């Protein structure tokens, strides 16, 4: 496992984003990629074959937004551009950026 503080995320159209490892680990998917016996874990480079550059850019922005605000209570909402909203939603689902799983009451 590479020990760098940063990892690289690569979109399907070739854009590379260098992100703080700690910030990116809120994503379940990225955590699994980096912890498992995968090539990503050695190189610290994660390729996403389904996410476009602009969308991944927003995701990276979110990682840093979330990381910066992790201990604050009244956080202003991040701005989501309307035109990539649906794509971003798909990416969020893929990366496991859902709200924390809550215990569901059995109905």
């Amino acid at each position, binding site marked *: 496992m590479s020990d760098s503080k940063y990892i690289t995320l690569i979109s399907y159209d070739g854009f590379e984003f260098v992100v703080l490892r700690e910030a990116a680990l809120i994503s379940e998917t990225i955590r699994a990629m980096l912890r498992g016996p995968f090539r990503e874990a050695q190189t610290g480079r994660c390729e996403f074959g389904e996410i476009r550059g602009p969308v991944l850019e927003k995701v990276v922005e979110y990682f840093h937004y*979330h990381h910066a*605000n992790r201990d604050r209570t*009244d*956080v202003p909402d991040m701005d989501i551009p309307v035109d990539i909203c649906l794509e971003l939603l798909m990416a969020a689902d893929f990366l496991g950026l859902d709200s924390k799983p809550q215990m569901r*009451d*059995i109905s």
Partner: protein
Amino acid sequence: MSRQTRTAGRRIMGPQSALTDFLASHNISANQIRLDAEARRRAAAQDNQQRQADGGAQQLLNGDADFDTPPPESEVDESVVVSTGRSTRGRSAAQAAAEAERRKKENEKKAIDKIKASKKSQKRKRNLDDSEDEDDIVRALFNERAKPLPGQMENCAICNKRFTVTPYSRNAPDGGLVCSPCGKELARDDPTPKNKTKRGSGGPVGAHRQKQSKILDGTYHVGGKSLMSLCIQTLAKNIDLAEHLGDLPPKIVDKIARKLSKHRLLNPTTLSLFLQPSNQEVLVYDGAKLSADDFYRIFHSVPELKKLKVRNAIHFKDEVVDYLLTRHIVLEDLYLHGSNLISEGKWIEYLQKKGQPLRSLRVYWTDKHFTDAVLAVIPASCPNLTRLKVCHNQAVTGEGLGHISKITTLRHLSLDLREAIHPDVYVKLLTAIGPQLETLCLTRVPELDNTVLDAIHLHCRSLKKLRITDSELMTDAGFARLFTSTWSNPGLIFLDFQKCRQLESTQPRENPDGIGLCDEGFKALMEHSGKTLQNLNIHACRHISSKAFEEVFSADKTYENMHKMEISFCEEVTDFVVGSIFRSCPNLREVNVFGCMKVKDVRVPRGKILVGVPNARGMVTECDED
């Protein structure tokens, strides 16, 4: 007359002013303008004269003959000049006016053509990047030039009164200027306020209020919102822009549906987003804006529908059920809320024809038509039914419960009936189907007594969720007997004994018979299910003493799974008890303490929520704890 003026326009004249030269180069004749103005003025003067004189026609003729010498300005009554087109004037004057109007138009057109060709227009066009219609720009330029300067006189575009133009004169909606009274009218009608100041957060009070509101909504979190909620939020705001939702997973589609319904945005248009032919479930959380046609649409555009949930399904009526019966749709899960237009006969017909695959049937808020007779059909025609929920129902009686007890497949049963039913009927029901029940919810049952608790103790083996609310007869001893160690049911996950308490208005403090959930019952309950409980509601069980609370939540006891507690209106809850609760339940997220007047100043661990503190200071967060 027109010919005469035109020849006059071409007449050879003496030296001209620079302005006339300039205008001539733009094909605008200064003479023409002067003549137009004269004609207008004359027409106005004539009109005026006509009003003043009794024999109007004579005067008119005189005025007409007096063609070349315009009346002096002073003669024109400034306040009552009426527009040339509308007034009742003699024929020739009207002709003159019409001619003038036509000429004015012609000139305007010529001028506009000139402007189009001019440099300024070209430059502006470049700047505007072809975004606007070219003609609009040119017209705007023309109006800009044609607008009278401050200090000049002008006729109001609305009331036609003559007034002095000031820098503050407003533009009329369809060109021209208006006088100040009309301007005020306009300003009042104008829907967009000029200086819309953006409201701030309202300082510390606003922020505090916002936080409290979030806490009550249950959406309070430390840190930012998840990317998914942010996206769904944005999507819900701009739902009118979305054409389809693509192939999002059902879980997310459901979240979007919830968000939309929360904002009451679900209507026939947005419903289409959720009707993908490949879907197996359609969940409508607010069907108030849907008509019967929209329900037809659900059935014919989602042929593989298995799960249908409609809240506020007002227009889900007999015709819709008829249509559903004609389709090859195999519903496994039906959830209807507020469908009062389905008649008893139609319910029976539906269950008889389509009851076979039905696994779950939930019916909320029906007053007359979901009756005992409907329940009577279920045991025979719904052999796979595991979940039955009949809530807010005014028609089902003890007879209906008798029919329910014949549904041997039932795992989950929730009843919220308005008819008072004797406890023995419930005992019979539990004897029949108790052993396999996982969920038992009996809401608002003031007449239920200890015999029902004993029946639960005796027959239920696999309960996970238990709710008995508003009982006025069950006693502490009864609850303690239910939760003794001999009960072979494993620990419950969800418990709700809301408002099981003594109701005695004359002596509210005394409870000699131990009615309701009190000390022993509460201790036995926590002993039995404390380790597994996730959700506990003992709202208004007000005879539980602080000693019992302290014993249950003592330092050596932990309840790992506890997630949410509702202990509002438990009078004996103190600061110490709340502190002990936080200590004993490490995974607790929310505690409700409305009406617990002894809770005054609790330190709430970080990330946990305490709702309803009487001093309204709400949550105090400490950063170093937890």
